[in-house]
């Protein structure tokens, strides 16, 4: 924007939140505006702090897994998985291959569900109403699968140390494959209706640029980082829970031109990840072996020996890591989650500088932040 042709104006401060339709959750966003341009942004989080880690440290081991769901209710599977993997690493519990595949299937379904929600938030940010309903309709099918397997749509509480609670029911794999086929068709529908619409492209291209420098400064990970050209994926670099048996490539925006990493790139990358997840699910459904779903060493009254472990997994928002310390007692001594949204919110404050006020919903939604993850 050429300042020579602008009228002089004072800086105006506005505060958005704590409840605002375009914010990712309960938070305050302090914006300073020079006309329409944001000159500074400060995010104030902590309004939905639940004391999750403290609660985990006070709960018996067996009772901790359902708490982990509340790290991010939209992707509850990943909170559970990270914690269970850390505890299994401390206790030296090996997971049966069948249980690993079930965990993988649930992870990828959770990823698809989260990315579909991302599409909804992006469409809402630009005011495209119809695609919201179409995507939510398809997301319901994923949630129905969760309910079929785990008994719950969101907070599953399905994992346990050493495996999973229940086996896959009859017909689940067939329904899974049907949904994968359906999603491939639906992605084309979303592209026709929304992704390549001139209005959306003109709103999102060149907006909210996240560079590699900012990624490294704030430790941004996941699809937001891959859209800017950083080819990092925990599923590929440090495979876990059966990903080593799956053939897939890390999707990354390798066009490292000066405009790489805008809102549109982040949106397209997540669409491609949905497609990739359907392929992974198809492979998993074919490769899932027969066998136990719970490790034999995971007895009812087993004790977690002293030790500590940190695990990393690839959640839909980025690299989620969980650090668990055990002193051999009935409860964890220390639990700490390092969530991708915490990095994302820091980067968001920098990205928002220089953008127009009307673009801030799109920029925030493109980073796919979860306030629940940040506040814990």
């Amino acid at each position, binding site marked *: 924007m050429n300042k020579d042709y602008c009228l002089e104006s004072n800086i105006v401060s506005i505060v958005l939140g704590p409840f605002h339709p375009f914010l990712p959750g309960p938070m305050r966003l302090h914006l300073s505006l020079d006309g329409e341009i944001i000159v500074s942004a400060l995010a104030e989080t902590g309004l939905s702090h639940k004391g999750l880690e403290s609660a985990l440290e006070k709960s018996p081991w067996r009772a901790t897994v359902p708490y982990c769901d509340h790290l991010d209710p939209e992707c509850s599977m990943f909170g559970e998985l990270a914690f269970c993997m850390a505890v299994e690493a401390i206790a030296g519990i090996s997971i049966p291959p069948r249980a690993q595949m079930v965990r993988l299937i649930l992870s990828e379904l959770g990823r698809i569900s989260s990315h579909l929600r991302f599409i909804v938030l992006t469409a809402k940010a*630009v005011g495209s109403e119809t695609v919201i309903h179409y995507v939510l309709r398809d997301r319901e099918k994923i949630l129905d699968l969760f309910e079929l397997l785990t008994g719950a749509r969101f907070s599953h509480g399905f994992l346990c140390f050493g495996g999973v609670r229940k086996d896959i029911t009859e017909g689940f794999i067939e329904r899974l494959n049907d949904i994968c086929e359906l999603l491939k068709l639906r992605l084309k529908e979303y592209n026709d209706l929304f992704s390549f619409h001139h209005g959306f492209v003109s709103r999102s291209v060149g907006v909210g640029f996240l560079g590699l420098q900012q990624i490294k400064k704030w430790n941004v990970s996941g699809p937001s980082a891959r859209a800017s050209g950083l080819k990092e994926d925990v599923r590929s670099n440090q495979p876990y829970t059966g990903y080593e048996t799956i053939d897939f490539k890390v999707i990354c925006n390798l066009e490292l031109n000066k405009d790489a990493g805008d809102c549109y790139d982040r949106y397209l990358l997540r669409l491609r990840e949905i497609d990739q997840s359907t392929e992974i699910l198809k492979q998993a459904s074919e490769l899932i072996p027969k066998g136990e779903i719970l490790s034999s060493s995971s007895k009812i009254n087993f004790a977690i020996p002293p030790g500590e472990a940190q695990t990393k997994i690839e959640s839909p928002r980025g690299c989620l890591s969980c650090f668990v310390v055990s002193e051999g007692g009935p409860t964890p001594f220390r639990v700490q989650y390092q969530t991708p949204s915490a990095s994302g919110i820091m980067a968001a404050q920098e990205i928002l500088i220089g953008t127009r006020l009307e673009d801030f919903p799109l920029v925030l939604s493109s980073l796919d932040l979860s306030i629940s993850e940040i506040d814990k």
Partner: protein
Amino acid sequence: MTQKLNEFKNYLGTDFSEFTYCLMVICIIYFFIFLPSYFLLNILERKIIADFQARVGPRLVGGKGMPQSIVDFFKLLQKGGGPIIKKQEFFGFCMQWGALFYSIAVLPYGSYLFLIDTELSMFFPFLGILIFILSTLFLGLSRERVKSTLGHLKIVSQAITGIFPALVCILSLGVCLDGFNWAALIVFHGGFFFHWMVFTNPFLFISFFIFVISGLIIFNLPPLEESLSLLGGRGYVSSEYSGGQAGLFSLMRFGSLFLWSVMSALLFLGGWTLPHALQVLLDTKRLFLLTQCLEVFILLTKTFFLMIVILVLSAVTPRLRTDQVTDFSWKVLSPLALFCLIGSAVLRFV
């Protein structure tokens, strides 16, 4: 007006003044055309958009939810303390409503349902529109919140960019009609669609689309409304208004779209003109009331069709930023409108 008044008096067999006649026409326009159209179109919009969004839509009230819009409107009026307006905003609201009512009233809705026809009748609604925009400015300045004031000012700046192409389109029409009065327009229109102004020449065809889009820009209507609507005085999802004010705001928003759609139907889509044979038959039989009803029905059908197309498009279209809309208006619509004006003039006089 005198001739029509005399014909009307002869038909009714009574004598009354011009003032009474005007009052009657205004009452018919607002209570039998405008308000029922609002309720009907509101429910149609919700049902149609729900259908292609894979939803059911309103279905709780009455027969399949048809009276839902009426119930919702009156429910809103009594919520949140009713439509009480703060003192500072009162002047702006009065100006807005007055301008909107004036603009709607000066349009013709049938051969006997219009109040004014002068040499520049087609420009009369624009006077109301300009006052409407000015009132939005006053309303914005009277708001106590910075972001609300900024939003109002943004709407006003967007509205101003839409006025120019719309006026140029009217000029294109006037060039073809040799005048800007409604009588000339009605005489020119024929009953069948290929006699409409929009199909007269390709430049008027383009002008029609420019005119409609300009109206959406002027009145900040979807899909060209301010995208971050919560900061504006008019929005669709997160408007600052609640309760009675939200009900009135919804009515005003409909009124803007209705006004512009009626103008578009009158200017480009044949207005209320009946097929010639039918017109002759009705005149011969002196079926005055039936004629009026048919004319209003035809005009409203075209108006509703246009409004539904706009609302359907708005449901599937992402919103643009205000600066993108104003750029589009100045850099695309305005030059195109001027091109159409020149083209119409060349076709007319060469």
